[in-house]
């Protein structure tokens, strides 16, 4: 085992990355052969260390015998600062996986570590900001109050909340709407407010569950661009659930393709398109190649 990890070290970064994806696929058999320390040692060779570590996690809804097995033996590690997309057919457990990371559910088996902490500890440390599929704004609060709700809950003083609200409203370019109520905003604007709210206490991780699912194609693309812009400026790690293959390829560093229920990670596609991404990205042959790869992994080609 010792010789194996040394061999990996000498192999160079490209080599490691290649092996890593192979490893994650063969993780179950590997884990049997490697000690825990060595197993993680391999991941620590990667320069940006994993921020979220999901180790053979299963989730069963309902009774142990006749419940629904939503996730089966899922292993995945998300690097700090990465933009990772989860894609897969409906009902394959994408939302479930996201909720497990956000500690809205607890795994039936396996372990999740977030920045070295349990999901519960990470939630209490406010490491994650969550954006749901619907904006989930509170209709009795105006936009500024909605954005600062998380700060109110951690007991931040009013001047700080005001300052942060201004900052975030500038970030999503909705300064003029601070005193408006949610119903006065379009669906796309409401989604942006939800994203700003998730960023309010500067979480290291943004968990997004099909945030643009209910929007039209044009708004979707625009918000996608703005999300990338925001991601580069706010330096957060994003786990992004989507149904759209082009969206996943356009935005992500890596796309994790999930299999139908019970969900597992079928394949991880490394999106090595140059950043910053723009409309010109779509002219690259590599873009189409990656699109095809993801579609193939989904069984669409």
């Amino acid at each position, binding site marked *: 085992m010792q010789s194996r990890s040394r061999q990996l070290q000498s192999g160079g970064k490209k080599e490691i990355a290649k092996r890593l994806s192979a490893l994650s696929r063969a993780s179950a058999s590997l884990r049997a052969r490697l000690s825990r320390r060595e197993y993680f040692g391999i991941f620590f060779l990667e320069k940006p260390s994993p921020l979220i570590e999901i180790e053979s996690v299963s989730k069963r809804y309902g009774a142990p015998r006749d419940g629904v097995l939503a996730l089966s033996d899922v292993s995945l590690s998300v690097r700090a600062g990465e933009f990772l997309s989860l894609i897969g057919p409906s009902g394959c457990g994408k939302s479930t996986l996201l*909720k497990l990371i*956000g*500690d*809205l559910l607890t795994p039936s088996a396996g372990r999740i570590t977030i920045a070295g902490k349990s999901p519960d500890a990470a*939630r*209490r440390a*406010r490491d*994650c*900001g*969550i954006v*749901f599929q*619907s904006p*989930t704004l*509170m*209709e*009795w*609060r*105006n936009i500024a109050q909605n954005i600062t*709700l*998380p700060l*109110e*809950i*951690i007991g931040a003083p009013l001047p700080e909340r005001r300052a942060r609200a201004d900052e975030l409203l500038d970030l999503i370019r909705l300064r003029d709407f601070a005193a408006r*109520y949610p*119903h006065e905003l379009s669906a796309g604007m409401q989604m942006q407010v939800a994203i700003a709210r998730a960023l309010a206490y500067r979480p290291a991780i943004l968990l997004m569950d099909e945030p643009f699912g209910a929007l039209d194609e044009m708004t979707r693309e625009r918000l996608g661009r703005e999300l990338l812009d925001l991601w580069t400026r706010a330096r957060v790690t994003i786990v992004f659930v989507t149904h759209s293959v082009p969206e996943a390829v356009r935005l992500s560093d890596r796309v994790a393709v999930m299999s139908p229920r019970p969900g597992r990670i079928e394949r991880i596609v490394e999106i090595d398109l140059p950043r910053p991404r723009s409309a010109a990205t779509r002219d690259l042959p590599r873009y189409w190649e990656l699109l095809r790869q993801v579609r193939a992994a989904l069984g669409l080609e």
Partner: protein
Amino acid sequence: MAVGSTGSAAEWWDAPVGTWIRKNIQYILIPFALMAFLLAWQALVVINRYPTFLLPTPGEVAASFVENWRNGILARHLGITLVEIGLGFSIAFTFAALVGYVLARSPLLEKIVSPYLVATQAIPIVAIGPLIVIWINTGPLQNALIAALITFFPMLVNTIVGVRNIRHEYRDLMHSYAANAWQVFTKLEVPAALPVFFGGVRVGITLSVIGVVVVELLWADRGLGFLINFARGQLDTPLLFATVVTMSAMAITLYIGVLILERCIFHWRRKV
């Protein structure tokens, strides 16, 4: 010519005064409708030569109203009725909010308690009224309690529905912020359940009025309901009418009061 005259009519209609009239036409017509109604009433009495005790004229009712308002009889009984309504409604409000919240948060408890709650609704409350009269002798409180019993259930149901209907994502949201129970209660549950709860309040205030008046009619020795009974006994039909008018005005005022309160609380709502 015809074209010209249509044009000028349209111009008048679009002028500021015309627009104002068009917008508020339903309010402008109210006094006219009332006037027409009173005239028809007067004509009916005059033509058929009804005796006063059978159907007084609007004028006689108005005279009785003014007289009994001056000598304080109407005001005194109105005051008592209002106190009873206020008391009964407050009791129902408090219990509906407390019990409703607890039941909404505890499905097990709701399963245990709800058959009894439904059973109390199946009993005609007025039928257990005499029991309450036996138990509690202190005037307004017994009437208030019966009114509270009638008012309680719809408000309770609305509280439960209001709290239950909060979408799970909102709870997840609060959970992800690691909000404590009190924060979830004040920042999510109360404001989110309030609109539905107020639907119950609107029904509740009306039921409180009905409850108190019915009980007064049946066995009280004061209040507007009693006054109706009294006027009937005296064959003082104008007073009976004057009391009904007072009662209606009171009920309408209370209802509008709730509506105004709702407007103030839910100022963020879409204006239709």
